[in-house]
């Protein structure tokens, strides 16, 4: 939760590699969507949002079309919200951030953008949230890192890097917009994340 605490871990992607990876994802999104003006990039709060913004900029530079940009917060769509009779919540409730979808979803191709794909539960929640705002023509998924351990039948359309991990490990994505540096780290931790 503590975004600015110094994190020690093995660097899997440095700033250059992260930039190249995003470039490739942007290129794949252009290739995969001949009708680019129908595409909207929707970042999942928190780190999916700056990633979506960077991808939109890269797509505009390469294809000359600026995709619509949005953000979705999944706090109220989680499947582990409740504390019953004083039991601890399954995972700490994240701070609620804004959902911003300032364009109609009807007929759009929405590319959900997140930093790490893990159990798939975050993506399930994001899809459910999206459909409460409208009915997109199709939904695709772009992630910077796929670390495996899926618990739901969810598969990304665009993957920056496949990084098989043990459950006790954690992938920490750091972005300049949030963390002052660009890097992907492998961190040993007993604590589970839910993404």
């Amino acid at each position, binding site marked *: *939760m*503590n975004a600015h605490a110094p994190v020690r871990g093995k660097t899997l992607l440095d700033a250059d590699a992260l930039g190249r990876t995003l470039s490739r994802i942007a290129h794949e999104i252009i290739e995969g969507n001949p009708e680019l003006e129908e595409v909207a990039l929707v970042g999942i709060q928190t780190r999916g949002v700056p990633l979506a913004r960077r991808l939109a900029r890269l797509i505009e530079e390469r294809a000359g079309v600026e995709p619509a940009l949005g953000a979705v917060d999944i706090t109220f769509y989680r499947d582990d919200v*409740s504390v019953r*009779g004083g039991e601890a919540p399954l995972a700490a*409730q994240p701070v609620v951030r804004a959902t911003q979808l300032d364009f109609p979803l009807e007929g759009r191709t929405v590319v959900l953008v997140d930093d790490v794909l893990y159990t798939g539960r975050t993506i399930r929640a994001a899809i459910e949230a999206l459909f409460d705002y409208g009915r997109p023509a199709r939904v695709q998924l772009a992630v910077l890192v796929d670390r495996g351990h899926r618990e739901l039948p969810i598969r990304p359309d665009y993957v920056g890097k496949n990084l098989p991990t043990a459950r006790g490990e954690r992938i920490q994505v750091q972005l300049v917009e949030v963390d002052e540096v660009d890097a992907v780290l492998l961190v040993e931790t007993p604590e589970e994340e839910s993404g």
Partner: protein
Amino acid sequence: MIRLVSDDLRPPANPPRRHLLSVGDLTRDDVERLLATARTFESSLERHVKKLPTLKGHLIVNLFYESSTRTSSSFELAAKRLSADTLTVKSLGSSVDKGESLKDTALTLGAYDPDVIVIRHPQIGAPQLVARVTEAHVVNAGDGKHQHPTQALLDLYTLREELGRLEGLHVAIVGDVLHSRVARSLVQAFALVGIRGTLVGPPALLPRELPAETTTDIEAIRDADVVYVLRMQNERMEAGANFVPSLAEYTARWGITPERLRPGQKVMHPGPMNRGVEIDPRVADSADSLITRQVRSGVVVRMAVLYDVLTGGPVGVQALAAAEVA
């Protein structure tokens, strides 16, 4: 630390049992968190699909021993917007009429395993009793003339949304302060967020023990940013007690009329209104009246309260604060 009400009998390893019984249980951080959560819920109500799946599978019981339109309906709507199941029990037509004690009713409803019990009761301390005898999280929707914390929260929310700030505002609370749980909760809430409160009304209806300035002079409302009009609570006045000589005299001396207000001065009222008694209909229906805004705030603030008691609120607020310090 978030602290609401902790049950001392529980081992310290567990997080505190969370209830909302009194504004006195809240810290300023709690208030900020609840208002921020309410604002997020408000934006969800602008969508095509207004329902959120957040509390799916949870049971929320509304137990109302006093008549109520907006509080009970807004709690019910708040629960439904969060996909919870609701069960509303009103004293009329239930076993409550047959003399069942509050404790027995609470135990009976507790057998349904509710996650939250929202209670309104004419006796002070009734919500605390329900919290003791059931496993549910308890939200006080008004107990006697003691507390009405969700009303105070929705009023703070309304003030911030309409005036852009809380700290430094001056609010005059006018009318039957003595019998008003709204006034008691508001005075505490104002102290928490730095609002200056002035209590105005007939001498017999102005309690001395509240930590706010008091005056019988209606002219005192002049320099307030907001005039908060209280309802004349005839049902709480003992028969024969002369709190005011007559309603007509009350209206003449303390009724809120357009002539007594500055242009642009905002007016609030917790409802239900006695039009023509404590508030002139022209004031109630004017552009400066925030009364329907208060009703709308009621739903999103109660959504935030239900979410907060059940989840402990988004702890990220603290994590974020800690991150900013680091």
